[in-house]
């Protein structure tokens, strides 16, 4: 049903004030994408509550009129997940960006959903603490968005993903009911609804506040750059390090095309431009023993065929090595106006073979692919720069991406490691889940949002849910049991 903007806009403005509501197409353009060029749809109405009470009132009002909504953080999700389809109202959470409390002794903080990831780490750094999950978009992305996506980042290899760093959430369910999930004051038994909510991509409601676990800054860090003349050798070095029992804080790989894009950009980090691949390996922890681990890692890289292995001499050099990695997506903007990226995950032993397959697929479709990814946990990020105005190129990109995804699934992988399903990967869900498994996911959604008004049409193909509804419904289970 089309949104009745003329009616709804003033009703929402009565809650947030006129400056909290956007309804003009020109103002809404910026909310029409989340970094993926393949999905673009401007919403017809967006509302920006600036207090918790306003947010509650907005959600309750939308519930009372039965209007769907899409919670949105910074819009950096790269899966089409934050787009308002079917005329849902966008609820922008950026104004709810306060850090409410920091408890350094217990290493936790309470933040509003729109608090920016990097701002949280900056705020707690005087206490020698940081917030561990560090997506490449951390200077923009919000903690609420991270919760919705179960976001990762390079340092999740050692420290775990968002799921492992959230202690509690206050959640506003789509019907306006308030619930507290998890606890920061001791263990909770019962169902892990906190775990179920994290990564639900905005389909289970809106987090009003987030209690995060903080991590002590490591006493020492060694950041190493290993330079390889073949992707295969870099992949083998990765496997060797992972299997050795040494757990690097991060283990990232960049291939030749990525290196050259970075080095030609303002983010030039000093990567060797003639390398087929580099590994960025970071070890951290107690200073005692760190050098011994660094020597082992260097030895493993050299045995796998590294031409050279160097260690950042100071914090400035370390920051430069990381900036190149974290801004690699931006650097690829030099290659073409648009960029698509996937984030399939494969078993780590399959890296050499799958990277070769990706290369072959790209060549066959006459495309350039830049691989920059979390090698340590097998989380690929094949990027394809192209011009979306060229229908032929767009078509070839979409074929290649589908083939890459299929190859990853065939290798025993998953279709997304940190970006989420959103709209972009809906079509791949049946590749990894049976109809019954997808239907069970719909059941879980219905526990939180029986009307399916929160971020409708995302994550699980609607078809799966429809079929579920044709099955004996859980609501009439007594009648459904065969005699």
């Amino acid at each position, binding site marked *: 049903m089309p949104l009745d903007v003329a009616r709804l806009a003033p009703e929402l403005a009565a809650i947030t004030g006129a400056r909290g509501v956007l309804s003009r197409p020109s103002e809404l353009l910026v909310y029409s994408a989340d970094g993926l060029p393949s999905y673009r749809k401007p919403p017809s109405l967006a509302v920006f509550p600036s207090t918790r009470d306003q947010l509650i009132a907005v959600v309750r009002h939308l519930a009372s009129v039965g209007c769907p909504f899409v919670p949105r953080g910074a819009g950096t999700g790269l899966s089409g997940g934050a787009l308002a389809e079917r005329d849902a109202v966008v609820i922008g959470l950026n104004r709810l960006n306060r850090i409410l409390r920091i408890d350094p002794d217990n290493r936790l903080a309470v933040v509003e959903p729109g608090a920016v990831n990097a701002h949280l780490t900056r705020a707690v750094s005087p206490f020698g603490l940081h917030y561990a999950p560090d997506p490449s978009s951390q200077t923009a992305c919000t903690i609420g968005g991270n919760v919705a996506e179960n976001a990762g980042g390079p340092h999740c290899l050692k420290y775990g993903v968002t799921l492992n760093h959230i202690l509690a959430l206050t959640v506003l369910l789509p019907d306006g009911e308030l619930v507290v999930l998890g606890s920061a004051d001791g263990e909770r038994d019962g169902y892990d609804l906190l*775990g179920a909510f994290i990564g639900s991509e905005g389909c289970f409601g809106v987090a009003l506040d987030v209690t995060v676990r903080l991590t002590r800054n490591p006493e020492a860090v060694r950041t190493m750059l290993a330079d390889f003349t073949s992707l295969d050798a870099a992949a083998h070095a990765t496997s060797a390090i992972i299997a050795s029992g040494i757990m690097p804080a991060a283990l990232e790989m960049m291939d030749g095309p990525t290196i050259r894009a970075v080095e030609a950009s303002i983010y030039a980090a000093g990567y060797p431009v003639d390398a087929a691949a580099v590994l960025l390996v970071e070890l951290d922890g107690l200073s005692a*023993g760190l050098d011994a681990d660094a020597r082992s890692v260097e030895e493993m890289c050299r045995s796998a065929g590294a031409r050279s292995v160097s260690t950042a001499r100071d914090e400035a050099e370390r920051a430069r090595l990381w900036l190149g990695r974290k801004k690699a997506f931006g650097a690829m903007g030099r290659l073409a106006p648009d960029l698509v990226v996937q984030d399939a995950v494969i078993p780590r032993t399959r890296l050499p073979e799958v990277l070769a397959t990706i290369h072959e697929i790209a060549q066959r479709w006459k495309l350039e692919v830049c691989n920059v990814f979390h090698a340590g946990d097998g989380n690929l990020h094949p990027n394809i720069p192209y011009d979306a105005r060229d229908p032929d190129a767009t078509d070839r990109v979409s074929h290649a991406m589908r083939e890459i995804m299929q190859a990853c699934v065939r290798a025993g992988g998953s279709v997304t490691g940190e970006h989420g399903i959103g709209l972009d990967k809906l079509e791949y869900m049946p590749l990894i889940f049976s109809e019954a498994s997808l239907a069970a996911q719909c059941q879980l959604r219905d526990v939180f949002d029986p009307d399916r008004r929160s971020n409708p049409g995302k994550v699980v193909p609607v078809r799966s849910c429809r079929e579920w509804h044709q099955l004996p419904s859980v609501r009439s289970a007594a009648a459904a049991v065969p005699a």
Partner: protein
Amino acid sequence: MITGTAAVQELREQLSRAANDRTPLRIRGRGHWLDAGRPVQAAQVLDVGALSGIVEYVPGDLTLTAFAGTPLDEIAKVTGAERQWLALDPPGPADGTLGATVSTASAGPLAHAFGGPRDNVLGLQVITGQGELIESGGRVVKNVAGFDLTRLFTGAWGTLGVITMATVRLRGLPEVDESVTIPIDSGSNSLPALLSSLRTLQIAPLALELLDAPLSRRLGAADAGSLLVRLAGNGDAVRAQRTILGQLGAVHDAPPNAWRRLREIELEATACAVLRLSRRPSDVADCIGAIHRDQPEGESAPVLMHTAVGRGVARCIVPGASAGGLDALLRKIETLAGSRVAERLPATHWSSMASAVGDPLSRRTKQSFDPLNILNPGILGEKS
């Protein structure tokens, strides 16, 4: 004996039959938890214990998939041969099953460094209360595809579905893995300050437990209370941490098998009750103090307590011989701030515990996945 996928099919049929005639089922693995006294109203046992065996193990991937009835010690043996391990050490005998560990979300001292089952399970195969065989998660270490049923079934005590297979994350065994004890009077008034300074030390132990005096004596660790610390890494890292721990007191090698004995202490003490109290780490010393103050002097079978000080979880084991003091202990615990979880209680006492799944969202979850209420009914204290 039917094994593997055929056995899963058999279980599924048994479950479907139970759904047809609404027979409530008690789900059973090795049976270690059955005497915890939890109030389950079941007419039949659904035996998952025979569904055992490792399905897939590729050492280079550091993941392992096994049927639910696979004993943890078997997993330890197979992965140990590759210098890897599953870093979960739930209380109970070494042959407890993977399925039970995940279903009950049981965590031991290693949770200090590695989290609990929810942090280590990558994917599950489950039969729901409607007899549907479903899969969640996957076999890779990072995965956000779809809604997270893995977390939902982990710790649900089988009330939402029967776990038939699990994929877990493994880790490389550290080069050096050694444990030490340091005498600490856990009854002392200076405990809060001591725990506070402990949190600032530059150490990264795998496990860090404060044992009270009775438990320390029992394990041969010290006469008064003690800290039991598991250090790991390369030789340099372990040596440095031993030195740092010296700031707290004399550092001794831990008695052999201290961790294994700690995991089984409730069996050794023929415990009638095991209760966990938890608070923020900065406040857990208050819990410990409050329980201590209530302990009668010269009790022949005193309450045994160990506290994961990094996580703020104190675990009280009430020996069978002190069952008479249980009511007083429970009343005391009632008055303390923080959360309470009962692991084991006499059947008579469960009704006094509030249900962990009584809230509307949990009730809707149960209604959705086990609408006929045939899976372990009552085990979470839920009122049907």
